[in-house]
């Protein structure tokens, strides 16, 4: 049990204005890919190019995680020979790439999205279904929204 003290002064959070959900792109099959189409709701906040670059990098990272090749086959066969007990001590290739993705998203949020009042949610927290972009209320001077 934990006892915490809270101060009501801290309730100064920017409010969420809306959320946009970037859907999966299934045109190449069941591999994890997100649509690079720029959502209209973000037009006022973000460059189309910036957004596309973020999504494209994410797509490339997921493709790297799911790549079928010599390395993944070797990992699979080796794991099978040990009755998959090897995964009790070793991280899978996919998990390593997921960590990379988490770092990338954090980095993007800090550098690009947060200064514009946006927030990217790691797709793994939404079941790899969507990239959720939270749009915060714009409290900058001169915006009448």
């Amino acid at each position: 049990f934990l006892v915490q003290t809270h101060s009501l002064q801290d309730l100064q959070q920017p409010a969420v204005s809306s959320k946009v959900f970037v859907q999966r792109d299934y045109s190449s099959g069941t591999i994890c890919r997100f649509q690079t189409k720029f959502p209209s709701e973000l037009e006022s906040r973000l460059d189309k190019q910036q957004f596309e670059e973020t999504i494209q990098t994410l797509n490339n990272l997921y493709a790297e995680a799911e790549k079928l090749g010599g390395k993944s086959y070797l990992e699979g066969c080796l794991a099978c020979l040990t009755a998959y007990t090897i995964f009790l001590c070793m991280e899978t290739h996919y998990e390593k790439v997921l960590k990379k993705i988490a770092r990338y998203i954090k980095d993007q949020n800090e550098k690009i999205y947060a200064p514009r009042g946006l927030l990217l949610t790691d797709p793994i927290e939404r079941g790899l279904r969507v990239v959720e972009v939270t749009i915060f209320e714009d409290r900058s001077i001169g915006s009448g929204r």
Partner: protein
Amino acid sequence: MSAVMITRKVRKWEKLPGKNTFCCDGRVMMARQKGVFYLTLFLIIGTCSLFFAFECPYLAVHLSPAIPVFAALLFLFVMAMLLRTSFSDPGVLPRALPEEATFIEMEIEAANGNVPAGQRPPPRIRNVQINNQIVKLKYCYTCKIFRPPRASHCSICDNCVDRFDHHCPWVGNCVGKRNYRYFYLFTLSLSLLTIYIFTFDIVHVVMRSVDNGFLNTLKETPGTVLEVLVCFFTLWSVVGLTGFHTYLISLNQTTNEDIKGSWSGKNRVQNPYSHKNIIKNCCEVLCGPTYPSVLDRRGLMQDDSLVSATCAAPSSSSSSNATPQTTKTTAPLIPNEHTPDDAKPSIAASAEKSPSPKEELPPASKLPPLASPETDAETSIAKDKTH
């Protein structure tokens, strides 16, 4: 002014919708009905015990000690694959949170346009082109998502499962993307084990009968009769099943697709997921990447009723750590056919938090509950979810 809150750790698996049972604090995930699974365990362990007790001493001495050793290894492999299939997440897709569900519904309404009153709205289907074939994605009313290709909703577990193959009562779990290869290796190794035991039972009986006579042999090793019976019936079913799944793997199909006839027939779509090469299909299914579970079972639930701050200075954190407060969904949610009566609004709340590893500021979200909200004392600690 300040508020004091007493918290208790609640892990996310406790609040997951669906009809799964969890053990070992969320590490193990199974279906609710486990009776047949216990039968499977009993049959395998029982038959192997009889084999080690009756046959192995004789065979080790008269033939080779390698026989029991190999049997033991095979038995261990079978058990490992069975437990892995039964206890792991088959590839369950988490349900859509309220905002995502609303967003999708708004898109559907926009696509449908104006439906005249009294007319039924068109079915919720999205068409996607995969490898030059049109594949229809269906909408799941329970999970409020458009199911990805090859996903299906298991009514027994009440979950959408990715690359859904079938629900297997013998392993007490669904078989889907994440555990299909373990399931296949289980049936394959069990076939080998059954054939192995059956063969050496016969060898043993023959060898002993030569010395002692058939009836005496049966009297000395009564276990053999039981083993032969079990193996005989198991052989037909398990070997047949292994053969069937080998066929499916070579074509990169699922049992679900095969039963529904998704890719068969003249006017139907050809399987867009097959590499048209047996070896490549086998490699993808059996040696492909090991997909992670997207259900965070062991993560810690976040507070959904009070805003709590562990760091007092908001200026120190960038606005990426700011948390969304209110999410009032105004669009009406169309009631679903299977209204989950134990839907947990706290899942939605937990997902509201921003994924910042250093400071977690749980949101004060007042979400319209999907069903009656949890009443109790469970709140959460403001801490990172640890994997």
